[in-house]
């Protein structure tokens, strides 16, 4: 769908030989991935294939065991990197929304711009309201998260991440916790971001959406990227048996 990712565009993210294990459980085993600016990359694969862990590593929410992660030319996996500074430029949206339940929507969105970027309350709130307005959430600005539907909460979570003006946005199965009828409104927001040129890595089980929005689809299996390519090719003529088996299971489950 999007064609922002010209082949000559600069690298937004480079991952080399990434290893991560939780105790005896090897989750990422030599992951390599390059994402260019304005590119939309979808990660697909079975549960436990390492999609979420990969995203959490990129945001430094997990300590990596080996490998390199370079964001915008800076190696963020190096020791002594200021983690808080790195995270300002990388947004992440979680499956379970993780909104702050004790704060109104507008405060959820303006917290980080105020406390991290040092913006004044008035400016941060005005910007938050403008963003909420843009995504049809203006009238919810004064509500607490528990008064919102799941779809609205997830849209607020996306707006909260956008308020930091990230150069890279990570979406971790953001529709998996939603009732089916609420999925579309969240996917529409992501489509709009893609159209605007946002660089995104999207872990998803929504194959139709991935085929629709991705510039590139990566199939994860056994802790590495087994196969990657344009969505049309991956979904129509996968080269690897494992990819084919996975897609057949997905089709059987009615998800494609």
């Amino acid at each position, binding site marked *: 769908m999007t064609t922002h990712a010209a082949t000559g565009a600069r690298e937004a993210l480079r991952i080399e030989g990434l290893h991560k294990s939780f105790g005896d459980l090897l989750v990422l085993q030599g992951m390599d991935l390059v994402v260019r600016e304005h590119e939309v990359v979808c990660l697909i694969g079975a549960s436990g294939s390492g999609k979420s862990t990969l995203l959490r590593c990129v945001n430094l929410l997990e300590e990596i065991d080996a490998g390199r992660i370079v964001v915008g030319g800076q190696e963020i996996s190096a020791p002594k990197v200021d983690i808080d500074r790195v995270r*300002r430029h990388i947004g992440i949206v979680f499956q379970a929304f993780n909104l702050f339940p004790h704060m109104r929507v507008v405060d959820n969105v303006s917290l980080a711009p105020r406390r991290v970027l040092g913006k004044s309350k008035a400016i941060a709130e005005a910007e938050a309201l403008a963003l909420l307005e843009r995504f049809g959430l203006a009238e919810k600005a004064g509500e607490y998260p528990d008064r919102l539907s799941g779809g609205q909460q997830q849209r607020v979570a996306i707006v909260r991440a956008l308020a930091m003006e990230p150069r890279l946005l990570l979406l971790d199965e953001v529709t998996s916790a939603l009732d089916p009828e609420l999925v579309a409104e969240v996917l529409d927001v992501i489509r709009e971001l893609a159209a605007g040129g946002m660089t995104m890595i999207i872990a998803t089980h929504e194959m139709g959406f991935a085929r629709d929005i991705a510039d590139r689809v990566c199939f994860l299996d056994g802790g590495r990227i087994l196969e990657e390519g344009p969505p049309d090719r991956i979904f129509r003529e996968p080269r690897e048996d494992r990819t084919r088996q996975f897609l057949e299971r997905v089709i059987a489950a009615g998800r494609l």
Partner: protein
Amino acid sequence: MVATVSTVIVFWLLVVLITGAPGWVDVQVSFLNPKYFWGSLPDVIAHFWVNVQLFMIAEVLILVLGLVLAVLRSLPGPAFFPVRLLATIYVDLFRALPGVLVIYVLGFGIPGLGIAGIPVDPFLWAVVALTLIYSAYVSEVYRAGIDSIHPSQDAAARSLGLSRPQALRFVVLPQAVRRVVPPLLNDFIGLQKDTVLVSFIGVVDLFRTAQIKQAATFNFTPYLAVALVFIVVTLPLARIVDWLVARDRARAAAGAR
């Protein structure tokens, strides 16, 4: 209906049992004497002000020190191990020691050292002792509250670029404190009652006042006045705690915050 009947029967049996006891008349004279009760009540109430002051000053200090201890104990990483260890020793120590012992040691021991410049006012040392004892308990309440906030809240805050202290201050602590208000109030009820322990080091509070009156008249009725004062101030607080707990339970059931 059944509850009313069974309650009446139980209380009637209790009354029969107690008033039928062989020593009832003596007890009535020495513990339930209206003359001494009304005679001592105004003085007892007047000196309750000392307990109220103790309670209010200690309470503020306890809330602050307890929070500091809880945060120190939840600092992560090997670099903070000594800090965590010291805080843990503090909490273990003051929860293990009987309160009256701490009050004795501070109230008599420190002024007894005779170091120039060290205050000897027993009221001051009473405040210090109550603060040391109760901040240990309160820090555990806070810590349970902090632990009850799901790590995903911290992750969400950190992912936005907030530092660890910022995530704690703006995201974790506000939610944690809200959750522990009922158990904190319970500890306050305990503190309110334990303020009478300071009478052991010479602070003339309501309990000491009753003691003085009892020693002068050989009648124990003044203690009844003390009991009445505590019941009157503690019961509303206990009801507030119950109400808060019920409200939180209703909210949790509704899936709300």
